[in-house]
């Protein structure tokens, strides 16, 4: 679950009232959020790096709020406040509009065909006459970071670049060039570097080194230029220093480059809906035009409002409540899904704003209605489903045997299903290729190299870990091992095994033999060749 850190007092100011921690926790619970932690910057540094490094850090109280992973509109203070205010009927959801520039042509971003090899998609928009304060600026940067970590899948799907429009001039070109041919002064550096040099420079940067692999081995790297050849950015790594945003910036050019165009549009919509609040004309976003290699053009941001119709009967039926159409329409509006009764029976027309890209089916709308109603207000009912229970035969048998084996004086162990190759091969005098074992591709340690093909290593390890216990140790386990099997759709199957170990100063083969005899007796198998069971020496 993504976590958003907001300054408590800023939050309360924006909400128009203060809350006690308990009251706010309660509000979060109802809205589907979780107030995870109440801390301060000082506390965090103290905890992570030691008390001495924390002196001088801020004690301003921070609320760490857990947000559902699909709610990109709640990843910043602005979005949280808006959502909560609408939820509490303190305000109406704003209407986001894409507008033409007051004069002249919209900003243009021209995509060349070279980008297709590395990062084909791009979208763009302009925030006109915006006013930043330190807090708003911090929030602006923080949201980009959060989006990068979440929906952008660590910049691999989408990367956001924000630029001071007054320092650059369009039309802008999004192209891709061999790394040696790209040269610019990146953010917070004092001199120019080529892209190749930047790859080495950032190998030791704790933040940026994680993104290098996205383009490192490609023959060409993405790069955005303005009409004077100034580099805006080299996505997804770093922006140029020239166009960096400051507190004085009044006009922002936002570009998102991507390998997934749907996500790029969602991300752009998020950035502009959240921060257009601070434009001279709040909640308006100036359009930008993207020109594709084939000449087609498209205006962004989409800021699409989608309408969906559903019946109040559908909502009532799925949730298990009985509310009127008007009430349900009101409840949905509280969740930023502006709804109206159409008058055609119990039909409600719901308008899904660009901030709610998580709503893709009527069931998402239904859930929001239930949330606004209050989950804990829903009366609970018992389903009348009549069924007769049935046990899985192998599990039933396992349960019966486990009890008998304990009665026979053996103790149950529970060992890991994953182990090292040596555990099932070398240590048992076998070759790994003969074991029909299933191999794991990405084990973090040798302990997870294969799935066990026998229960014996696990039991022996349990004995080894407990060898100081009073003797004898008598252990058993009835559990699954994994074997390759080409007849199965996944190429492997489980096999239920029973294994027992006796550990004492004398080996006690007769004890294990006796346990086997007892088990067979319980399973009504006679000790007889042919018509029963027998044991014989192995090869």
């Amino acid at each position, binding site marked *: 679950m993504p976590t958003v850190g907001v300054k408590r007092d800023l939050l309360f100011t924006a909400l128009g009232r203060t809350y006690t921690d308990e009251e706010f926790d309660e509000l979060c*619970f109802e809205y*589907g959020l*979780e107030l995870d932690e109440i801390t301060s910057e000082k506390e965090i540094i103290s905890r992570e790096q030691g008390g001495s490094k924390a002196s001088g850090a801020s004690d301003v109280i921070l609320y760490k709020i857990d947000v*559902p992973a*699909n709610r990109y509109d709640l990843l910043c203070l602005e979005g949280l406040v808006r959502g909560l205010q609408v939820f509490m009927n303190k305000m109406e959801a704003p209407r986001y509009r894409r507008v033409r520039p007051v004069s002249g042509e919209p900003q243009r971003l021209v995509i060349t065909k070279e980008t297709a090899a590395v990062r084909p998609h791009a979208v763009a928009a302009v925030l006109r006459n915006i006013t930043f304060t330190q807090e708003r600026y911090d929030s602006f940067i923080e949201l980009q970071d959060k989006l990068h970590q979440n929906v952008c899948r660590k910049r691999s799907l989408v990367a956001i670049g924000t630029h001071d429009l007054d320092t650059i001039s369009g039309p802008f070109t999004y192209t891709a060039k061999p790394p040696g041919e790209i040269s610019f002064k990146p953010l917070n550096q004092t001199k120019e570097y080529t892209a190749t040099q930047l790859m080495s420079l950032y190998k030791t940067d704790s933040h940026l080194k994680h993104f290098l692999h996205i383009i490192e081995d490609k023959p060409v790297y993405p790069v955005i230029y303005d009409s004077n050849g100034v580099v805006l950015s080299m996505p997804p790594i770093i922006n140029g220093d020239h166009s960096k945003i400051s507190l004085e910036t009044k006009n922002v050019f936002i570009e998102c480059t991507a390998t997934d165009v*749907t996500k790029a549009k969602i991300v752009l919509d998020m950035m502009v809906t959240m921060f257009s609040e601070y434009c001279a004309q709040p909640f308006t976003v100036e359009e930008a035009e993207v020109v594709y290699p084939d000449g087609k053009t498209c205006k962004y941001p989409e800021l699409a409002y989608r309408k969906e119709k559903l019946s109040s009967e559908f909502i009532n*039926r*799925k*949730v*298990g409540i009985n509310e009127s159409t008007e009430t349900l329409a009101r409840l949905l509006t509280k969740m930023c899904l502006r709804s109206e009764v159409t008058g055609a029976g119990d039909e409600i027309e719901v308008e899904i704003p660009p901030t709610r890209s998580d709503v*893709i*089916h009527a*069931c*998402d709308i*239904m*859930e929001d209605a239930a949330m606004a109603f209050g*989950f804990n207000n*829903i009366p*609970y*009912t*018992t*389903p009348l*489903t009549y*069924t007769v*229970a049935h*046990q*899985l035969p192998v*599990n039933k048998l396992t349960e019966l045997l*486990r009890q008998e084996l*304990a*009665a026979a*004086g*053996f*103790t*149950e*162990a*529970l060992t*890991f*299903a*994953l182990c090292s190759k040596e555990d099932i091969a070398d240590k048992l005098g076998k070759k790994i290729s003969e074991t029909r074992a299933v*191999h*794991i*591709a*990405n084990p973090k340690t040798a*302990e*997870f190299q294969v799935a066990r093909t026998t229960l014996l290593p*696990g039991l022996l*390890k*349990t004995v080894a*870990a407990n060898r100081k216990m009073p003797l004898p*140790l008598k252990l*058993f386990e009835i559990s*699954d091992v994994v074997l*390759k099997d080409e007849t*199965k*759709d*996944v*190429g*492997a*199957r489980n096999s239920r095994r029973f294994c027992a170990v006796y550990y004492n100063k004398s080996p006690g083969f007769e004890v294990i033999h006796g346990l086997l005899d007892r088990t067979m007796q319980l399973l009504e198998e006679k000790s007889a060749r042919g018509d029963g069971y027998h044991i014989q020496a192995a090869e």
Partner: protein
Amino acid sequence: MTSCWSVQLISAELRSSKHWELSGEGTEIAEQGSHEARVFGSIPPQGLTQSDLMKLSFGKIGFSKAMSSKWIRVDKAHEGGPRVFRTVESIEDQVREKLLLVQRGNSSQLEEKEKNELKKRKLLSEVTVKSYWITKGSSFSTTITKQETELTPEMIASGSWKEKKFKPYNFQAMGVAPDCGHMHPLMKVRTQFRQIFLEMGFTEMPTNNFIESSFWNFDSLFQPQQHPARDQHDTFFLSDPALAHDFPQDYLERVKKVHSEGGYGSQGYKYAWKVEEAQKNILRTHTTAVSARMLYKLAQQEKFTPVKYFSIDRVFRNETLDATHLAEFHQIEGVVADRGLTLGDLMGILHAFFTKLGITKLRFKPAYNPYTEPSMEVFSYHEGLKKWVEVGNSGVFRPEMLLPMGLPEDVSVIAWGLSLERPTMIKYGINNIRELVGHKVNLQMVYDSPVCRLES
């Protein structure tokens, strides 16, 4: 004495006293004088060579002490070698006098400091004497009758038990521990949960397959291929066998469509769905993959019948390990499929389930899962911690998951899950999961763990 005491023939009072005693060396000094005094005494008026002095048994120790007491002096420049002379006419052998006092039993005349000094020089030691002061007991007699420890068959047969006295049982000690086997605490809890599901009419799913394809584990559940849970960091992928095959082809096409284009009333995720991703084999990350297979099978039936399924089995996550997380753990899952089930029904069944665990106060919080909508986290009130703690996750499966399978539109499927390890660790007071699961478990804990009664 102890046995007499135990039958009250005598009563004994423990007394202890301390006194000071001379050590061997101390006794020698008391008799012959301290080393330094003897050094003094052995020096004639004309003095003695230092080398000769050192040859005497008391020479070495006595010399330095006599020097520091300023009884003697050394003329280093004397011809014939360094020579020792007396500096005073006579001396008082204080050490010897002190020791004599102690020997005579008058150690109280010496100060504590002086005694400790001598103790440091190993001339004195403090000795504790323990003694028992014995008086007649309540059952005093001059004869001892032996007490029998046990009734024997012979005594019964002969009737001699009538004249015997029997030793009382010692109820302070523990009895003899029976030699028995034991069941593992996690499995004991599993048995109880299994019992609860069976009591509620749930049928056990065939979950005995740890290997699953990404298709059944993720795609059929409407979890997109770009979802972080499908990362290398969270899921174990297989190198051998690497890929699954034999998917129901037309179902696979419907799954592909709902992911990439939408349909069934959904916008879909609008990304390029790849069959290569779906074919990748993994160690299952949840038993919901098996639920998906079961629901697909149910959908292939001629006529729909309502079902209740459950499973309690192992799942695998490639996450960071810590005190409460391992790479493998057990998931408990319950599923109900019927026509017209509501969110209120899900809450009802959760109440019934948790009541059997002794939990009656529940609260539900809106949550998010890729494959359920609505989703709810289930919280119960912990009397001890005085706060609400999460006890499970639940939801209604999305239409994008159910409709491509072919289930009728009015069929709702509700489900919930929790881990087996967490309630076990709470029940048995275990803080580190490695003490519960795996080979490093302490068998003594297994031997000593009580029966599992979940409702208390």
